[in-house]
């Protein structure tokens, strides 16, 4: 088991290097250091001297991949790519183009993201499982049919409409929660209610349908029929067997997204002005602060890989037949 995990982690390195190269090439082709300097120095009265100074300070005046003038190993190390990418592997994100410490920013902005995504995930699971189980229980009846149609209808509405609608009705008309913003500590709750609710409603359609399918599959299995034949009541079968066994694929499906909860949701965060990592990324994109974007890409990849490893492990935990090798 441990050796397997170690192997997976070792396997992650080439992937992360690949990610790094792709993002690096993309961003440096897009944005020359000159562009970055101009972006950061503002728009009024910028001269060339200021730009070269800015580049020099940040090490952007170095060659991109290969330093012809340097000595020996420094030919590779004394380049923009090496200086900017290798440090990522020890989670030293360096400073953003605007001069802030990215690592510190990430550690600060992680919490608001989690304050939205974690309740969203838990409440979402509860709600979707309840709905899915209800529909599965009433399979074939009008409850099921109308429920499924409702799900398809809800799936067909763009998430943007849920956000706009929620903010408009609950925040503006009914004065139930603040329209947007965030606060620390206990005060954060009133700000998180609406984003969580919107995320929840937006996901009902697809998730409920998916969970219903899982439960239906479970109900079609032999042991359920056996249990019923033995005289167990429908509800008992449902709760004790179908629900418990259906949870396995659901929870292992959840494990893969667990790490990405840190990243938060790009759209929801920027609509509700939540200072999490999602809005951090969006801001960085629009401000073209590529030091941040690259760090976030890297972080996203790391979390994705952790998610994959966790999924594998969780499979072995819930199903002893699966062996890791």
């Amino acid at each position, binding site marked *: 088991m441990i050796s397997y995990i170690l192997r997976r982690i070792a396997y992650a390195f080439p992937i992360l290097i690949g990610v790094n190269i792709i993002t690096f090439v993309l961003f440096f082709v897009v*944005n020359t250091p000159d*562009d970055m300097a*101009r*972006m*950061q*120095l*503002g*728009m*009024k*009265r*910028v*001269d*060339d*001297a*200021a730009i070269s*100074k*800015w580049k020099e*300070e940040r090490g952007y005046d170095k060659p991109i991949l290969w330093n012809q003038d340097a000595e020996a190993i420094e030919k590779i190390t004394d380049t923009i790519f090496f200086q900017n990418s290798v440090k990522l592997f020890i989670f030293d994100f360096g*400073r953003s183009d*605007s*001069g*802030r*410490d990215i690592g*510190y*920013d990430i550690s*600060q902005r992680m919490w608001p993201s989690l304050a939205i995504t974690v309740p969203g995930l838990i409440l979402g699971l509860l709600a979707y499982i309840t709905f899915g189980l*209800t529909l599965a*229980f*009433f399979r074939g*009846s*009008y*409850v099921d049919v109308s429920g499924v149609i409702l799900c398809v209808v809800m799936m067909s509405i763009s998430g943007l409409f849920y956000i706009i609608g929620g*903010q408009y009705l609950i*925040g503006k*008309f*009914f*004065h*139930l*929660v*603040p*329209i*947007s*913003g*965030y*606060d620390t500590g206990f*005060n954060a*709750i*009133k*700000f998180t*209610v609406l984003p969580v609710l919107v995320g929840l409603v937006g996901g009902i359609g697809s998730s409920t349908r998916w969970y219903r399918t899982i439960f239906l599959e479970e109900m079609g299995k032999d042991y359920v029929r056996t249990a019923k034949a033995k005289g167990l*009541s*429908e*509800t008992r079968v449902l709760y004790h067997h179908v629900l418990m066994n259906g949870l396995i694929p659901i929870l292992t499906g959840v494990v893969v997204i667990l790490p990405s909860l840190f990243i938060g949701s790009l759209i929801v965060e*920027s609509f509700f*002005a939540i*200072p999490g990592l999602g*809005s*951090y990324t969006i*801001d960085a994109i629009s401000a*073209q602060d590529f030091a941040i974007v690259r760090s976030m890409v890297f972080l996203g990849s790391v979390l994705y890989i952790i998610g994959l490893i966790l999924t594998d492990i969780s499979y072995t935990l819930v199903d002893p037949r699966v062996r890791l090798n």
Partner: protein
Amino acid sequence: MTNPIKIINRYIPRLGNFPQLLVCVLLLCTGCDYSPWNNPYPNEDSAKNIYYDSFPERPKHLDPVSSYSANEYVFLGQIYEPPLQYHFLKRPYQLIPLTATELPRARYFNKAGQPLEEDSDPADVYRVKYTISIKPALLYQPHPAFAKNASGKYLYHDLDPQKLENIHALSDFDTVGTRKLLANDYVYQIKRMAHPRVHSPIAGLMRKYILGLDEFAKELSEIEKDDTTSGYIDLNRFELPGARVVDDTTFEITLKQKYPQFIYWLSMSFFAPMPWEADYFYSQEGMTDKNITLDWYPVGTGPFMLSENNPNRRMVLKRNPNFRGEAYPSEGEAGDLESGILEDAGKNMPFIDTAIYSLEKESIPAWNKFLQGYYDTSGIVSDSFDQAVQFNTQGDAELTDEMREKGINLQTAVTTSSYYMGFNMADEVIGGNSERATLLRRAISIAVDYEEYISIFANGRGEPAQGPIPPGIFGNIPGEPGINPYVYEWQGDKAVRRSIEEAKALLVQAGYPNGRNKNTGKQLVLNLDSPAAGPGSKASFDWLRKQYAKLGINLVIRATDYNRFQEKIRKGTAQIFQWGWNADYPDPENFFFLLYGPNAKIDHNGENAANYKNAEFDELFNQMKSMSNSPQRQDVINKMVEILRHDAPWLWGFHPVGFSLHHEWYKNAKPNLMANNTLKYKRIEPRLRTENRTAWNQPIWWPIALVIILLIIMLLPAIISYRRKETESIL
């Protein structure tokens, strides 16, 4: 069969107390009191003397020597104090002393060192001297950089990464100190403009004027190259001939040539004092890695200090306990006495204890929160304009009934800025001084109906420009004599845009009948480059195309990102572009220099993005630049404006009118577009605010009840059939 009604009756008691339960849970969430639920601030803050505002994007620089943008001045203006400021109430804008004891006067000297008259020929002027004396005994805000131990040694001037381990923000330092403001601090700041590690946007400009600054900058960068250690250069060790300390409260600035506009710069934060202790403190090793820099944590003598710096969420200014106090102005312009803005005359400022600025990237939530009373003041975005403002029969803007019922007040002011559409004069088709191109540009000037633009996109909040100079700045002539005769004609009592027929006739003369080349018959295609901006851009693009289509010209809009746009402007590959300019100071020079030949973007990377060059204009510019406001200057300006109108390198566009709203409890509001230290004049009445907020934000219950009822209705049949199934399976 079971009777459905019976079943409903059986279940309702069980569900009976569910709504109350939910209410309790929700109440728990929001803190169990009766104040509004949607209050984005802690409820205990309601009664405090706090001012609430928002900021749309995080400030990039808070170092006064490198900051050059309005959203940074919102904070910097309250913290740093340059020698001069603009009078809060008087118009036209007037400079008055801030930390200086009086307005400095320029003294001119010829090469021999003899004093000259003020109106002497600029060519004779060899040196210009400004002697500035500052008020004694002004104190800096409490700051760790000044903290000393009992023996008088600086506590935090020997930091290293180990000592900084538990420090993440400036507030993590335990001890603070202060010190008196010295003339040397001003000189130190001027020296910092030349510092190789500091990017001052006006360094290039000032190096042209301030004596020795250019050489000083070169000297410093030599030193910096050799010095690889900390990056701190003790600027006190060096002499700068152009900025000298006379005594503790007096310093002298020397310029190489006549530059009457220089005095305006003295009111901007580029010339705010900078204590060397702070510079040293922030340059210690490890501080930059912790984000504790001068660019991030200002230290000033002003009425406020930045106590919380979290640009992801909010910025908090707190009253500076060491502030000397300043009296509210006791005179203003005509009408100020009646409007009640002089009520606080002579009282000690600032009035507010704390100012909280929250990040609001989206305009709609910000607007709605203003309406709910959670921001004290707000601008009006185009889309919420009709809700707030209507025009009466005379065409004057007034508030809608909805706003008036809430006690909201409206302030308007023509801004000292210009939104224009520039033609790249270096372009083959649209640029150049040929008859063809000039006529083409003038035809377009008539066709692009800025009156319509203002009414659609700015809700009438703008004044069509007749030339480069906005109203309120010397050189602008209102009324009939001031109209641009190439585009407008005077009819009755107002300027009316010339008809599209005239534009078409011009186009025929230019050789493009109906927008088609008279030789080839091909349709004229022009390109407009624009940095794509947000959701509103499509509408304005469509509108622009419509305008050019009136002449049969096909306008191609090349939307691109800001970097790309800048690059195109820099290389001169753009054809038509839209841009704006915000006055640095109220002087026509600040607008004409945007069209001065030697400032051309492609040749000199200056601010003349249209790359306009006209020898006559350039000569007049040099003449006008060093004149003081006088009828003679007006004559020169008139000549310059006429040249520009004839050549039409810009569509003059319009000067936006700023509208701002504020609540009843927000006092002493008067728009001042030059001053940026206006927070100290503001007064808040928190009690009135709390009452209004409570009245406006009563939670509305029925939707929750409705949702619950709907859920029950949806679930009922399910419950019924569930019951049935249960019984079936038992059978």
